[in-house]
């Protein structure tokens, strides 16, 4: 043996986890939702996410190589996740150039301007999505009606999301109960048969992804379960108080981006708290804000804003919510 021995501090073994493995896990967990989306919205739902990923990777590469002049981090797979999530929050009828702008904002503003992976305070995909939502409201709120593969882009009929219908209707003073007759029933919504963003429609598929993430220990249950519970309880409370003006809690759970947001967006490692206790505080905030925006806000859907607002509180939560230290409480049993 003529090579030198390597010396380093312990530990000398390392677990299987790596950033790219975790990111791959997230991508796999997104696949069922993607499949459902393709089934309902057709080819556009197949190629838009792919394009979104390509755009995100391209912008990340260009920014790192030519602006920041540092080694590329494409291999970690975070740009793929950002690209997929961005596409999943957009309608399938979106023009490609708007998608490209979204990817640029997500990667450039949401991620790289803060220093890249690990240092961005806000979920990059949501930053991109909200930017598009505010800049191109028309394109961002024309939702193709789910049909399937026989839909081509040209004859796509656009309609409103269930949440949009509700908001519009309530503005014009209609009763919730009559409005709800026009939306798909719960089972249809659970399976994704409704208007909406590409990735958010199928609650069943998203829950499948959630189970996969839990099984692979990529995320813990705290954030998604807390958000869903909070949304359910808070909207349920409102519904009990006044069923005429409020939709039922199951409706709130199944519509809009609550599922996608709570399972894949709010759990984004970088922008969520570090301790279980902190996660629960953060997730409760998201749940409450979501229902508040949906009920009283100007927009039909509030998950995206709720997550971004709570993202801003994460550093604060991390500073004040500490894990239970070993030996802190004297327990002499």
């Amino acid at each position, binding site marked *: 043996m003529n090579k*030198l*021995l*390597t*010396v380093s*501090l312990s530990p000398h073994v390392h677990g299987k986890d790596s950033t790219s493995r975790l990111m791959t896990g997230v991508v796999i967990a997104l696949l069922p939702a993607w499949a459902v989306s393709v089934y309902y919205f057709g080819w556009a739902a197949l190629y838009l996410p792919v394009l979104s990923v390509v755009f995100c990777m391209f912008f990340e590469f260009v920014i790192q190589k030519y602006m920041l002049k540092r080694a590329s981090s494409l291999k970690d797979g975070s740009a793929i996740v950002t690209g997929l999530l961005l596409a999943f929050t957009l309608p399938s009828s979106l023009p490609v150039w708007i998608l490209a702008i979204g990817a640029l904002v997500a990667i450039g503003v949401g991620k790289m301007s803060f220093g890249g992976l690990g240092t961005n305070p806000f979920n990059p995909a949501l930053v991109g999505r909200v930017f598009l939502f505010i800049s191109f409201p028309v394109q961002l709120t024309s939702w193709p009606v789910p049909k399937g593969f026989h839909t081509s882009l040209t004859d796509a009929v656009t309609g409103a999301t269930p949440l949009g219908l509700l908001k519009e209707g309530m503005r014009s003073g209609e009763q919730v109960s009559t409005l709800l007759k026009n939306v798909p029933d719960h089972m249809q919504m659970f399976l994704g048969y409704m208007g909406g963003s590409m990735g958010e429609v199928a609650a069943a598929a998203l829950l499948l992804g959630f189970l996969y993430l839990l099984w692979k220990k990529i995320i813990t249950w705290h954030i998604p379960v807390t958000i869903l519970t909070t949304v359910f309880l808070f909207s349920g409370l409102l519904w009990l108080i006044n069923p005429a003006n409020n939709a039922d809690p199951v409706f709130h759970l199944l519509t809009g981006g609550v599922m996608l947001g709570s399972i894949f967006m709010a759990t984004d490692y970088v922008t969520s708290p570090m301790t279980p206790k902190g996660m629960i505080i953060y997730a409760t905030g998201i749940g409450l804000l979501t229902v508040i925006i949906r009920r009283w806000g100007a927009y039909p859907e509030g998950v995206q804003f709720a997550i971004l607002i709570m993202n801003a509180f994460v550093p604060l939560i991390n500073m004040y919510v500490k894990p239970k230290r070993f030996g802190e409480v004297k327990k002499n049993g």
Partner: protein
Amino acid sequence: MSNTVLYTVISLSGLGAIAAVILYFVAQKFKVTEDPRIDEVEDVLPHANCGGCGYPGCRQFAEACVKADSLEGLFCPVGGNEVMARVAEILGLEAVEEEPRVAVIRCQGSFENRPRTSHYEGATTCAVEHALYTGDTDCPWGCLGLGDCVEACNFEALYMDEKTGLPVVIDENCTACGACVEACPRDIIELRKRNKKDRKIFVSCINEDRGGVARKYCSVACIGCSKCFQVCPFDAITMGNNLAFIDSDACRLCRKCVPVCPTHSILEINFPAPRVKKELVTTAGADSSGKTAGTKDTATGKKSSSGDSTETQNKND
């Protein structure tokens, strides 16, 4: 319409007035009377906030100066005597002159001189490697080469030479603040008197092991042979712990000790090449021009074949 504007203007002005009154009283209540000379002193300080004076920042140093009855023990190494003279002027005190100093690296354990015996991996900080073991060479005294000193330097006066794996001091940037001395876990860096033209002679080794042991892991280690000690006409060299040390205050830069060192561990920097050596080494002539011109690039870029090679590695000015 005009009413709306009127109300807005009135209410906002009212708010502003109330805030102003509150602010006034708060400012009165919490007023801190400070010696105005603190600001004056702070103004003449270099604002480097390097901590070289022993205080966390320039402000604290200024406070200490104003409080003190004499400037004994208070010295800003960055500003030097000039700044201290101005501080003294403001405070009406006597400035205590101090010799300007400069950091030197007392290790020549380059890749060439000191064979690697293992391979370190982990946190790239000398402090951690030092705590773990001797480092990737067997020398328990020498430079670990991970650049804690470079990291600590606020004045861009240090850089790591990739060829040798050792830090290099850029003399004109060095303010002798001592941050690198503090940062080095092995106490390799010393602040020495800054001589004319930044000339310096020092033993570039702090290895206290016996000669034979030291030579085993480093070809340019000081072996404590005392030859320099015997040849020094000014008693500037002391021997102890198998190591020679040249007192920079007593040294008159005669350079007698340099050629007698059998391991070339005494460095002379920023001198014109000695005349005797000119005949020995053909490249020495070229070297000397480089040295007198004193540009960093020529100094670090060349490699001569004689014992001079070691000094060129550390010199840069």
